[in-house]
């Protein structure tokens, strides 16, 4: 993109914001409805694009992207008026008469970076928040998902106000050009490495950022004696590992922790479930491109890692498919166990007792999600208290993403800032404190020249010692 073009584009959205149009409830509602119409009208096109980019089956595409977005837009539409309203705040009696409130206002011009693994979902979810909060925005689509990127850049604008919402395609160079401009907020979903670049560039303009990064999300599997529970747990693990984009998901299960004794039973059940789920090859996505395919092969081919493969391990360069692979106790210092896998390889680490998994996790960088399958309430409490992560889900995987009342975001190296539901609205708003006083009732003691009597008055005031104040006023109290 030419620099001149970019400047013109930015000027246009800035002017739109200045006009005040995006502050109205009706404008925001219209844009959200526009997104809903896009999702309904173009559902088949969305499925085709995701199939083309990532080999996603349409059920997966609906479950993880389209369906979630529909839910999010409807949730925003139902709650928008409430979110936009100011919140009254109490004022101490000492300031009578006065009133205070917190008034949400849009930040202005925001920049959103999408990600390739959920190229529709991760583009539109933050867009919903930015629109709800009344901003104008520029969305940069993910170049590694070209069909989805084209769809969003060419078709979505037909449903939205193009003077307020701009969609830009492009790669690293375009990203850098965008980052050199001044924004009121930057929302980034992606890797740690690029997250650092985004924040460093944002620092030049003191732009606040939200970074939704990743990490190695562990799933602790306690010994489950009830076979039915175990089968449910395994289905949820398999569904949570290979279901979302073939493991290429920031909250996908990265590795498992299980007791030595229980591991064989778990592994057997994982194998049979994988075979049952993925009998059709089109029910699992493929790796996004050759570079990531190679990266995953390299993880597998590191010395001693290959020896730990217990299931799968094969891959096809032509179709960019990597088989669901289970590894048991690969070396902890291998790249497989130190880097975020973001693919269909599932290491299983065995521990002597399940409580040891708490220390294992807390010694490592904080992940975006921790999963734990257990009925042991004491273990659950320990996990909550002794580990830190973006979120914790007990006895399931991935579903926290669908819960609008829970903040979605990381901590430590998994990022900072949060969104979903009202958190999205807040992420793109400034809560402005508004305090109103009147000209009645003056506290002359605030004003110089100051003396001990005035000081004593203020002491009483700060302690809300109204009796003391009254007595002073009546001349009955001296310091």
């Amino acid at each position, binding site marked *: 993109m030419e620099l001149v073009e970019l400047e013109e584009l930015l000027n246009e959205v800035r002017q739109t914001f200045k006009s005040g149009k995006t502050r109205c409830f009706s404008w925001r509602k219209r844009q959200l409805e526009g997104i809903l119409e896009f999702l309904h009208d173009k559902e088949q096109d969305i499925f085709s694009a995701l199939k083309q980019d990532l080999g996603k089956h349409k059920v997966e595409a609906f479950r993880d992207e389209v369906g979630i977005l529909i*839910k999010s837009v409807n949730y925003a539409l139902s709650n928008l008026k409430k979110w936009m309203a100011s919140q009254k705040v109490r004022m101490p009696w000492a300031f009578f008469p006065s009133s205070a409130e917190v008034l949400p206002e849009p930040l202005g011009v925001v920049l959103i970076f999408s990600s390739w693994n959920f190229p529709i979902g991760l583009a539109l979810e933050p867009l919903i928040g930015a629109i709800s909060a009344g901003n104008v925005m520029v969305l940069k689509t993910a170049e590694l998902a070209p069909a989805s990127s084209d769809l969003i850049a060419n078709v979505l604008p037909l449903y939205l106000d193009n003077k307020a919402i701009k969609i830009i395609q492009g790669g690293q160079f375009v990203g850098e050009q965008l980052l050199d401009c001044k924004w009121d907020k930057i929302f980034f979903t992606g890797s740690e490495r690029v997250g650092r670049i985004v924040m460093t560039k944002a620092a030049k303009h003191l732009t606040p950022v939200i970074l939704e990064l990743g990490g190695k999300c562990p799933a602790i599997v306690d010994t489950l004696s009830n076979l039915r529970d175990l089968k449910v747990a395994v289905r949820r693990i*398999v569904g949570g590992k290979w279901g979302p984009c073939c493991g290429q998901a920031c909250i996908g299960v990265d590795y498992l922790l299980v007791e030595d004794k229980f591991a064989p039973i778990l592994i057997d059940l994982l194998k049979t479930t994988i075979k049952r789920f993925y009998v059709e090859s089109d029910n699992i996505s493929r790796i996004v491109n050759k570079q990531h395919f190679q990266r995953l092969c390299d993880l597998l081919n590191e010395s001693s890692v290959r020896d730990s493969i217990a299931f799968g391990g094969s891959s096809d360069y032509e179709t960019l498919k990597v088989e669901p692979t289970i590894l048991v106790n690969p070396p902890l210092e291998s790249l497989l166990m130190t880097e975020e896998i973001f693919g269909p390889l599932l290491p299983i680490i065995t521990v002597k007792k399940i409580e040891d998994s708490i220390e294992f996790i807390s010694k490592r960088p904080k992940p975006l999600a921790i999963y734990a399958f257990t009925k042991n309430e004491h273990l659950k409490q320990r996990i909550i208290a002794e580990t830190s992560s973006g979120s914790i889900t007990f006895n*399931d995987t991935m579903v926290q993403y669908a819960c609008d009342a829970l903040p979605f975001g990381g901590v430590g190296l998994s990022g900072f800032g949060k969104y979903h539901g009202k958190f999205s609205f807040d992420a793109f708003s400034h809560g402005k404190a508004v*305090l109103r006083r009147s000209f009645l009732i003056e506290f002359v003691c605030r*004003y110089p*020249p100051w003396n001990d009597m005035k000081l004593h008055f203020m002491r009483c005031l700060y302690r809300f010692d109204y009796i003391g104040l009254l007595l002073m006023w009546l001349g009955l109290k001296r310091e």
Partner: protein
Amino acid sequence: MEELGQKVSFDSKRAKEMVNELRGSFEEGKTMGYEWRVEQLKAILRMINEREADFMAALHSNLSKPYFESFLHEISLVRASCSLFLKQLKHWMKPVKVPAAITTYPSTAHIVSEPLGVVLVILTWNYSFMLSLEPVIGAIAAGNAVVLKPSEVAPATSAIFAKIFPEYVDNSCIRVVEGAIHETTALLEQRWDKIFYTGNSRVAKIIMTAAAKNLTPVILELGGKSPVVVDPDCDLKIVAKRIVVGKWGCNNGQACVSPDYIITTKSFAPQLVDALKSTLEGFYGKDPQQSKDLSRIVNSEHFGRLTRLLDEDRVYDNVVHGGQRDEKQLFIAPTIVLDAPLDSLIMTEEIFGPLLPITTVNKVEDSFSVIKSRPKPLSAYLFTKNKKLEEKFAMTISAGGILINDTTLQVTNPDLPFGGVGESGFGSYHGKFSFDAFSHKKGVLSRGFGGETPARYPPYTPWKQALLRDLINGSIITLILALLGWPWRE
């Protein structure tokens, strides 16, 4: 460990050792418990009560701050803050139950507040006591280990903090590091879980760039030019008092929320100037240099900066009150400038001192475009009796906070978030906002093994897609079917 009272070189190696030690304490869980947090807060309260005189003397030494101001703006506010925290902390620490989605039924959802870890609070010089302790109280209450770096520009408070604070708080988790650029750089090279900075935008950029290396979130409390719009339809006597006390009664204008400049109508300006002059005389006497109620400029560097603002061409000629200065005493008289050019330094840079420019417009509504054409300030003030004007101001002027018919009071209400927007910074604190600023809000979703719907799993069929569609949209009937395990076969 820093040797109290001794000059020991604090470099990157020592910074790393210190952070490692604090991280060790944090990982041991020392700061997590309610009891520990309460103990630290009570200790801080005790420190304020027992050593009030020492702190007041230090504040006076830095800036010749009048005791009244030190008490009002610093000591009392922090004391009130500690008390609030002690009262509310248990409640704030509790997990909050939130509605879980129908899609995940049956399940329960909570938001748990947990500490971030080891945080760095870099302090500023103008309210060196209050602005130091307010974020530190928040960080401790949220269960973090904390390092404070007081400002070297307020050496007396910095020294007193370094000496007194460790006598009261748990040194294995809370430290004070004195110093200037060298020490701050050493600190910024370490990995923190959050950095809180109050100060100016130049240093803020350095801090945020350093924070980016470790993906450390930051809160930046910066400043800006806080405008005061004065509508002729107001109670002029009270307006003048509230402006004067907000400007010169707050560290002699050296406060981020101090009125920076006034905008009023051309016809009203003469009356406003007269009212301000007579109020100034009433507060500080005919010779303000003799008044004990005015702080001094913090150091000669800032004195030089302010005199440059004043002595610029076309500015000095427009002085309508004051302008006297005494470099030895670091004194500049309360000064009013009328209609300085809009591109002069005094009208483009944050003044942070006792100079008050007044800009005139034809009608009061024109002031809105003046404010909007400038970077967003930390505060914006309006004096008026006109409710419509009030509404328009509150709705359309973007600033950290807005105050109608008074100045600076927004910092005293702990239920209001205090923080900037745009160039005046981001993040907020005070009261519960401080607790939240230093916490991570962790979502915890708890399911059982029931409520299993095979529709989410492959092999995928059109049936499953239809079911998922309804389920995600929260259809109760579909939910019931799903709970019954429909479809029973995959």
